[in-house]
């Protein structure tokens, strides 16, 4: 009887192994990549992320693939629209049969699509969606390697408070779920330092900022913060510079898009001395892996340097590949278990998720948004100090831990 039990156990194990193998046989293993490729999404960023995710696919396959299979990254265009995002998530999972999903740029895309994936038990590692609620809902299959919006905002206001004699800050924000909360948090933070903030929010499609710039000018701010993605960030910076309110005239924190230095200098020729927030390990501390990615990325996209969102996109795919390898199966629950225990040497740094099903964030007195959230996202502030400078060469001026140069405050 005992022997029979053993036999049965072996048989079940063998069967399980076989079925696992059978699952692994269904090559190639597919991972979805969400990215905005048409308007009104941020197409420029989307194209960069697509390139990075396809490089990740190539790198992983060159290193032997996943579970003996080739990896195939299926790109899906979210258009930056929540309704498209959930449809695309649905398509990736049910039509293309992906086992996990990476990428995503717009916060609204993350908010709308996470439920679909969670209901279908498909793990997602979001790359560049900042809104706190994405992980704040504590869903089992949702991970994020981007910073929380509240962290990113705190970099902004902490750096702003260091500006000498600062009394008033003008914030230009896009009226989206990235811009509005970020503006609120930044204002709140500034208020805690005794600095007043005036927020101007614009429709993303706006081209002509002359009226807003004049109005900002009349407010006499000491510092300007731009929270606009896409070409809006460029248009505003250059038009502010035209009107004598640009980065060369007063301390000016340009939007995320300014990291794409080649496009930045083309669109904002008068944009020297702008501060830009950077996510991920600073360029001077880049690992071999990050440097190699940068070279490959530059060759594919013809851009000056890799942007942080593209590095995040690359890592989101790579970390999923590692998790699947460690799980030994493409089963969603197993991948989640692997992700919760993962230590991944990514291009952004060592990625891990301290809180999740095994350890609730509340144990350490943290908020729900720390759930499945990579805590060590390095947030730095760089400053362009020479015209035409690459965002990699630009000195890091904040925080002190990473500092490579002193900030220049133009109007002092």
């Amino acid at each position, binding site marked *: 009887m005992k022997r029979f039990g053993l036999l049965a156990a072996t048989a079940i194990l063998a069967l399980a192994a076989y079925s696992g193998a059978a699952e692994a046989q269904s090559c190639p293993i597919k991972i979805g990549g969400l990215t905005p490729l048409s*308007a009104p999404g941020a197409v420029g960023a989307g*194209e960069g992320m697509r390139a990075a995710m396809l490089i990740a696919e190539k790198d992983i396959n060159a290193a032997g693939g996943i579970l003996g299979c080739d990896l195939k990254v299926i790109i899906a265009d979210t258009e930056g629209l929540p309704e498209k995002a959930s449809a695309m998530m649905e398509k990736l999972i049910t039509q293309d049969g992906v086992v996990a999903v990476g990428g995503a740029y717009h916060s609204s895309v993350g908010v709308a699509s996470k439920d679909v994936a969670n209901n279908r038990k498909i793990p997602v590692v979001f790359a560049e969606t900042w809104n706190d609620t994405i992980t704040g809902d504590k869903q089992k299959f949702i991970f994020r390697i981007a910073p929380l919006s509240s962290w990113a905002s705190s970099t902004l206001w902490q750096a702003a408070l260091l500006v000498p004699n600062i009394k008033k800050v003008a914030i230009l924000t896009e009226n989206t779920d990235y811009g509005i909360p970020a503006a609120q948090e930044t204002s709140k933070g500034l208020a805690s330092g005794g600095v007043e903030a005036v927020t101007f*929010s614009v*429709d993303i499609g*706006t*081209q002509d900022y002359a009226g807003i710039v*004049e*109005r900002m000018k*009349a407010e006499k701010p000491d510092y300007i913060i731009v929270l606009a993605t896409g*070409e809006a960030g460029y248009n505003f910076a250059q038009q502010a510079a035209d009107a004598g309110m640009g980065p060369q005239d007063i301390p000016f924190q340009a939007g995320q898009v300014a990291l794409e230095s080649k496009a930045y200098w083309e669109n904002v020729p008068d944009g020297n001395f702008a501060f830009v927030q950077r996510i991920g390990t600073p360029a001077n501390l880049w690992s071999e892996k990050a440097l190699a990615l940068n070279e490959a990325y530059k060759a594919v996209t013809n851009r000056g340097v890799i942007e942080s969102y593209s590095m995040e996109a690359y890592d989101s795919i790579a970390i999923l590949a590692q998790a699947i390898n460690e799980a030994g199966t493409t089963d969603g629950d197993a991948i989640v278990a692997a992700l919760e225990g993962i230590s991944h040497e990514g291009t952004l740094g060592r990625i891990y998720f301290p809180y999740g099903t095994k350890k609730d964030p509340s144990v350490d007195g943290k908020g729900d948004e720390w759930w499945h959230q990579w805590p060590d996202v390095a947030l730095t502030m760089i400053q362009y100090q020479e015209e035409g400078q690459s965002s990699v060469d630009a000195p890091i001026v904040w925080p002190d831990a990473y500092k490579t140069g002193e900030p220049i405050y133009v109007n002092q």
Partner: protein
Amino acid sequence: MEFPHIFWGVFGWMIFWAVTGSIATRYFYLRRDLDTSNAPFVGAMLGASTGPIGLVPLCLNTPELTTRLMVMPALASVGVLMIAFGFADPENFCVANGSFVASQIVNGLIIGIIYGFMALGLTLIFSILGVVSFAHGEFYMIGGMITYFLTKVWLPGINPILAISLACLAAFAIGAAFERMFLTPMYEGKVDRPVEYGILVTFGLAFTIQYFVQATAGANPLKASRYFDFPRIRLPSSADPWLIKTSRGNMELFETISISNPRFTAAVMCIIVFGALMFFLHRTWTGKALRAVSQDREAAAIAGINPDRMNMLAFALGGMIAALAGAMLVQAFSWLPQVGAIPAMRSFVILVLGGLGSIPGAFVGGVIVGLFEAAGTGCLPDPQKAASYIPAYGMIILTLTLLLRPTGLFGRRFATGAHGKF
């Protein structure tokens, strides 16, 4: 706003009397068998500015509605609204800060001239073909794209004027070819409803061009470098240049108003080309023929003008003007395949405001829209909302114009052609 009840009270009062006025005036003019085409407008404006004091005599006497009777109440109601706003929000920059007001007005004027110019092509097309071209924004986009690629990628160092001319030529060719291929059935009466056909088929063109460009040229924001630098001027003296001070990219007047180089060159170019266009339309045979066709198609045909050829010329010329505007502004605004949407929307507003088909109307309409937008972004008390509403300002003008005076500022009813009915 400090005393919102003042503003909203006055506003509500004005709206009430405007509505009453427009309905009552129309009723009284209709009863006396008079021309009612302007009655609602005059009634609304007089009602808004004077309330029952002006309305009662108007309705009782039903005088002839002269231009003066139309302009004065309109200006008066704007004035009343401004005064109410001034009392309601005395802290607002628009009320308290003179140099702010001056720079907003200059901004509004400059962008208005540019808007007017964008709408010129659309107006020209409408006056000859009776078609509202929904591909107008795409011609604008093509103009910017070709100029950018010529000056920066294909032939760096090329004279910008030459690049702009080439872009215009390309737009002209596309316009002419499209008109020959797709718009000809309209004139031959093969199409049931030519106006709708025109809108739809240009819509198709817009769709095709926009996505074709996105698929081939990508969607990264691009921008051409400044075409010209300002010469260095310091007046009256270089030590104290309070009158005018220029740097390469900027001009400052009276130490308060700053005008950026790309805008300035664009606006100047727009005025020059506008003058040239007026000369062409009024002094050359072809131009006169164009105008003749716009006034009376059949009579022009009898006089030996080939309306068919004029159609092609007008559509191509309209596209070319849009491309020129795009080429001038690719140095001011970052270019994307979707960049044409905003000029197209503004052009629609101006087309209606100026009076469908009136070329001076387009220019005046452009300036009015520019000023209205400047006032909206500058004066709306909540800075968060002021800028968010920018897309709506123009559309509010459009709907108001259509409701009160569908012929626009300089409009006339057309005698013939597809636009005979409105």
